[in-house]
């Protein structure tokens, strides 16, 4: 058992350590910091949209800057690093190895994140997380745009190095007695998502370079005035970032595979179907990128291919859900905080998936394209599924990291408020999209239905904000003054929790 905070050490020992749990702790603290920073921007956006007209944000460009940095922060600086935190803590232990395969590379991959975060936040670019060309090339103000491009470039390298480390650790460093078919499903999830990163990210890395040289005026890949085509950027971007959706969601599902059997007091119903579904998602994730681009004038045949390719993810996703449902069947479930987050995450995963079927079907996609429906859909995925799975796992690993228990009542209040807030914000945004409200707008006409739904969504966001304040207070207080946890069985469930292999770093 490794208890990071139980034996206090000078901060520099953790900062300059290459041990996987120390690097995991750094990832954890960094990702949670960016969660609160990015979340506070979301509250600003929702406060602005509470009523038509200018409320608290001075102008449209500032609004654009805020939602650009909000999206970039929460995707690249919270969700992905949080998964790396969990992977750093658990993957070496799950495969029975003393550390990550390349510890120094692991630390380097982490230390690329803070400078990238600084670049993104100091620049505060305004061209959306998609870096929309040709605007991003022709008139997006520098140096904000260039700082964003460099920041994303650094984050891409960090992701690829991290992914490489996970793949080698799992495939080459696992204990010789352990076959690939015996590693836990959460380790499988990291293997799958890491492979996706290694295939997908280089494409975006190339697109970023092209974007930068276009901005410098030395090329015109995406600049129509120089014979370029912004649609080609869309292809390059979505070839990376549709699979990236699976990079985000697969580790969160892997975390649920740890929580749900544990709190159901049963093994997972079908290990092999879980592995199969992870592998399937990794493959079909690459067959659906152009469903983001139905409105760009593709042929009927192309659109049909990508529609079918998108729907191919449905059976694999359903296999995970059915696996969880079958595991909980005839169980004796303890609804501690981690389990509540995991089950809530499954429920919202299914809702988000149903909305995804609409987006993938080309006829209705034209109705919902670039409306608040899309905002509601992907936020339901990233907040309702990915963040729910991740936060649930944070509660699950809290005793492992700190040696103390969090406050259970506050954890449940956090979940209930977040669940209510998430439903209020993102279900309402779906309906708002069907009423025709475009996304990424600073102001809107005083249509009564739009005003009412924006107010519901903003109230939901405030509820989530309150829940996050409860969460922060709980984490800080419990890490220092919480009850000492029974680290063999912190949730009183029996059985083995955290894979009983000691960390072998001498400093521990």
């Amino acid at each position: 058992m490794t208890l990071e905070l139980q034996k206090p050490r000078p901060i520099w020992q953790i900062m300059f350590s290459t041990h996987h749990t120390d690097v995991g702790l750094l990832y954890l603290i960094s990702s949670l910091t960016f969660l609160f920073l990015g979340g506070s921007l979301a509250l600003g956006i929702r406060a602005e949209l509470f009523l038509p007209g200018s409320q608290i944000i001075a102008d449209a460009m500032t609004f654009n800057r805020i939602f650009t940095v909000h999206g970039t922060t929460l995707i690249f600086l919270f969700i992905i690093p949080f998964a790396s935190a969990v992977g750093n803590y658990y993957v070496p232990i799950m495969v029975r190895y003393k550390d990550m395969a390349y510890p120094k590379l692991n630390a380097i991959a982490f230390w690329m994140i803070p400078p990238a975060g600084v670049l993104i936040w100091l620049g505060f670019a305004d061209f959306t997380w998609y870096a929309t060309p040709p605007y991003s090339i022709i008139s997006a103000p520098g140096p904000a745009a260039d700082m964003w491009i460099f920041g994303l470039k650094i984050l891409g390298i960090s992701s690829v190095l991290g992914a490489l480390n996970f793949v080698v650790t799992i495939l080459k460093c696992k204990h010789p007695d352990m076959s690939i078919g015996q590693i836990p499903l959460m380790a499988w999830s990291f293997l799958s998502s890491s492979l996706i990163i290694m295939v997908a990210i280089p494409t975006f890395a190339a697109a970023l370079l092209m974007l930068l040289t276009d901005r410098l005026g030395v090329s015109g890949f995406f600049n129509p005035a120089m014979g370029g085509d912004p649609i080609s950027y869309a292809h390059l971007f979505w070839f990376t970032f549709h699979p990236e959706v699976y990079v985000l969601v697969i580790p969160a599902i892997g975390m649920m595979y740890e929580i749900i059997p544990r709190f159901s007091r049963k093994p997972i119903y079908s290990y092999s179907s879980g592995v199969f579904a992870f592998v399937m998602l990794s493959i079909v994730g690459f067959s659906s990128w152009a469903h983001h681009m139905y409105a760009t004038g593709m042929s009927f045949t192309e659109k049909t291919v990508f529609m079918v390719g998108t729907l191919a993810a449905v059976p694999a996703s359903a296999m995970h859900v059915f696996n969880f449902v079958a595991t909980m069947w005839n169980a004796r479930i303890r609804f501690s905080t981690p389990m509540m987050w995991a089950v809530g995450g499954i429920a919202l995963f299914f809702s988000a998936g149903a909305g995804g079927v609409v987006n993938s079907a080309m006829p209705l996609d034209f109705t919902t394209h670039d409306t608040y429906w899309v905002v509601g859909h992907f936020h339901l995925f990233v907040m309702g599924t990915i963040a729910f799975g991740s936060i649930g796992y944070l509660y699950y690993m809290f005793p492992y990291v700190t040696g103390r228990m969090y406050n259970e009542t506050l954890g449940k209040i956090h979940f209930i408020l977040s669940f209510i807030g998430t439903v209020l914000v993102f279900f309402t945004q779906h309906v708002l999209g069907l009423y025709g409200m475009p996304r990424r707008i600073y102001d809107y006409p005083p249509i009564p239905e739009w005003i009412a739904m924006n107010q519901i969504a903003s109230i939901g966001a405030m509820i989530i904000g309150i829940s996050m304040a409860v969460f922060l207070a709980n984490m800080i207080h419990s890490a220092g003054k919480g009850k000492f946890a029974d680290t063999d069985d912190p949730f009183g469930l029996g059985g083995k929790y955290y894979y009983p292999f000691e960390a072998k770093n001498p400093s521990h």
Partner: protein
Amino acid sequence: MAVLVGLPAVDYAFAAGDEPGEYLDRRVLIWNLFYKMMTVAFITGSVVSGTIIWQVWRFRESHPKAKPTSYEGTDW
């Protein structure tokens, strides 16, 4: 279900010729496919969501009929 229901419908859509008059049929067929998919998605979604809600109520450890699983007390 995707193979049995979805693909034949897509095949049917592509069986239409390229004449302008038949172009509209493709749109009608693809809408038809969409409605079928949504019907399947919402029915399945309702059943699964209902099942999860029922499981949360029925298999919670405080339920009067809750009983230990066969794995409790072991090092599974």
